């Protein structure tokens, strides 16, 4: 058996067999879903209830002002700013007589300061009531207007993109989501797995294993074995997440009533058209599910996933060897690692910033060049690929980016290997970047 394979095996198994690995792999998606659910729950619940006394000089608010769950408008007699609290109100609104459409201020006084949300809710309700009154004066019923509004939503924008001879439907929001999501994922994993490589190397050095090891294997084999082994751990984690997401979405479908799903499949056959004549009935829920499924299908998933795996691995390999080189020169003091890591983390953070602009505007020259240069290409190219190949990213750019990434990681691995070789056997001395450079560019 090849020695490098034995090393890969140990690095991989010692991490995957660890209980912590299983726990983080399973818990991360659950925590993320929980986090989103928690945030949503908090934004829905937990609002103050307001009982508001309205002192209106115009007289039309009583019939037009709508109550909401949290805001209750009351039009009491004999209540003023002096006694509204004792009469059980939380707030009082004083609306002066309106003079046509001339600008006018109305005031609200409250026991507690109002939250931003409540404040805008109240002013929306007041404006809505004024709008209602004006509609009535013009002879239009609110219900009429609402029905016209909903009926007028029949026209829908579908953006198409040139694709050789055919055009294909595209969706900017989805592209944004995919681009940002995959860029973010590469960003996080580069840090997590890069740091894992660095810690592994530091462990070997501080526990004095390095010299025992290099009497059996070449330092380069030791470094590559660790990098590949940890990369395989990362891939395993991704595949487990994909399977987990698959299971969760399948499970979620069981919670959707059967007839809704039938309607969805009927919609799929008719390409989203709701046929007139009542043959197929589609409820609101079914339409939403169909739309989601349809939007998701506009993305070119196989290409995106293939590119993601390529750029994840390429980016990981590019940076992992640099992290290994830093780990090899660190002595006992972990603070050394912090300062030596900075030149590596800076380009990663900088790429993230370019990436978050590139997902909004994928064709700027900065985004284009950043997606070709190997320092930033893994993140930035993923942001652009989501917008389509070869529409947004021409084939030559993709090829150039991939080739320069491969060339880039071969170069960083080669240079880091030389630093690593010297660094792991050195104790006691603080190494400067200048010295590391000298080692890296030394012949043989």
């Amino acid at each position, binding site marked *: 058996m090849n020695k490098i394979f034995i090393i890969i095996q140990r690095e991989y198994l*010692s991490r995957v067999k660890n209980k912590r690995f299983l726990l983080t792999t399973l818990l991360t998606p659950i925590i993320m879903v929980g986090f989103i659910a928690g945030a949503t729950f908090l934004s829905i619940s937990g609002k103050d209830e307001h009982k508001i006394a309205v002192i209106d000089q115009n007289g039309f608010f009583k019939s037009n002002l709508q109550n909401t769950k949290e805001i209750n408008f009351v039009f009491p007699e004999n209540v003023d700013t002096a006694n509204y609290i004792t009469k059980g109100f939380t707030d009082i609104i004083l609306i002066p007589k309106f003079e046509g459409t001339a600008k006018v201020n109305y005031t609200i006084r409250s026991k507690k300061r109002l939250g931003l949300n409540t404040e805008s809710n109240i002013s929306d309700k007041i404006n809505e009531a004024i709008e209602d009154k004006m509609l009535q004066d013009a002879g239009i019923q609110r219900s009429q207007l609402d029905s016209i509004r909903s009926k007028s939503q029949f026209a829908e924008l579908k953006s198409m993109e040139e694709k050789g001879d055919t055009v294909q439907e595209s969706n900017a929001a989805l592209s944004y989501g995919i681009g940002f999501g995959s860029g973010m994922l590469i960003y996080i994993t580069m840090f997590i797995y890069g740091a894992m490589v660095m810690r592994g190397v530091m462990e070997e050095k501080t526990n004095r294993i390095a010299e025992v090891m290099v*009497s059996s294997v070449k330092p380069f084999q030791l470094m590559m074995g660790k990098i590949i082994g940890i990369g395989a751990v990362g891939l395993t984690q991704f595949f487990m997440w994909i399977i987990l997401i698959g299971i969760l979405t399948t499970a979620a479908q069981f919670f959707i009533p059967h007839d809704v799903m039938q309607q969805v499949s009927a919609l799929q056959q008719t390409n989203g058209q709701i046929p007139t004549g009542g043959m197929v009935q589609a409820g609101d829920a079914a339409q939403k599910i169909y739309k989601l499924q349809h939007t998701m299908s506009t993305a070119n998933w196989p290409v995106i996933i293939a590119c993601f795996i390529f750029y994840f691995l390429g980016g990981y390999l590019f940076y992992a060897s640099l992290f290994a080189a830093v780990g090899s020169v660190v002595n006992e003091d972990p603070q050394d690692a912090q300062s030596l890591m900075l030149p590596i983390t800076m380009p990663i953070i900088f790429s993230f910033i370019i990436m978050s602009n590139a997902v909004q505007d994928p064709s700027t020259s900065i985004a284009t060049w950043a997606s070709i240069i190997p320092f930033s290409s893994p993140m930035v190219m993923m942001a652009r690929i989501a917008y389509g190949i070869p529409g947004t990213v021409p084939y030559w750019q993709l090829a150039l980016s991939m080739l320069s990434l491969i060339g880039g990681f071969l170069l960083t691995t080669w240079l880091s290997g030389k630093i690593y070789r010297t660094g792991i056997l050195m104790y006691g001395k603080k190494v400067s970047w200048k010295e590391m450079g000298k080692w890296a560019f030394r012949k043989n």
Partner: protein
Amino acid sequence: MSEILRLSNLKKHYASQKAVDDISFSIEQGSIFGLLGPNGAGKTTLLRMITGIFYPDSGNIQFDGNAFDPLNDIIKIGYMPEERGLYKKMKIGEQALYLAQLKGLSRSDAMQKIKFWFKRMEMESWWNKKVEDLSKGMSQKLQFVTTVLHEPKLIILDEPFSGLDPLNANLIKEEIYGLAQRGSTVIFSTHRMEQVEEICDHIVLVNLGKKVLDGTVADIKQQFKENKFSIQLSALPNEMNSSAFNIIEQKGNELIVQINENFKSNDVLKYFLQQDHSIESFREILPTLNEIFIHLVEGTKATARAFERSEN
């Protein structure tokens, strides 16, 4: 006996110093060889070249009759460096298996040999323990086993007894003798001279990157003897005056004398015989390796050099 290792004019220079500066010597197969020298003398650099970790700048190494080829010869070498360690979180059995496989043993072969050595060293119950649970002496024992497990022709031990209690040190010492008897060659690097004197057949002393001494322990002692003798008498004479010797020390009825130039040991005996003193014992005092070591190293810049950390 044939040579297992021959170093010819080895040089390795770092930016700031000549770590190994033109060193040549050879080692006989089956011998226990001591490589001595103060801290920073270039021992570790020399050993790293012999184990293929470093390439020499110039000079060549002959291993087992052929030019040294680190890639293929590494399986025939077992190296226990002074800076040694093990993966703390790994189980002991797995650790031994891992290191043996990296030496090039197949899994089944490695298992068999580990079982043999674990039994021999009374370590069988350790298999599922982690390294972090072992005491320093225990992990030293494990380290020794992983070094010799693949039955290498050449075993290099850098300070193998540091941190061992006398019982375990003896156990390892016995194993070293055993390995040498079975044909392995042992290079033993240390600055504990009493151990060298006890174990080694042949020694080389390096200082400041150069070879200072090379020879068998007995020859070297002869070479550095100062013509000192100890003589034990039944009773001390009142007056002693001889041109043959000077008395250096007097302990009870024992005298330490140094024989002057152009005189022999028999001249000392003659003197006391003539005086009719009954002699209870008479023996030559050879210098200890420790004394020779200090004599040779003291006054050189060895100490200053030890602080200049090597940079390569």
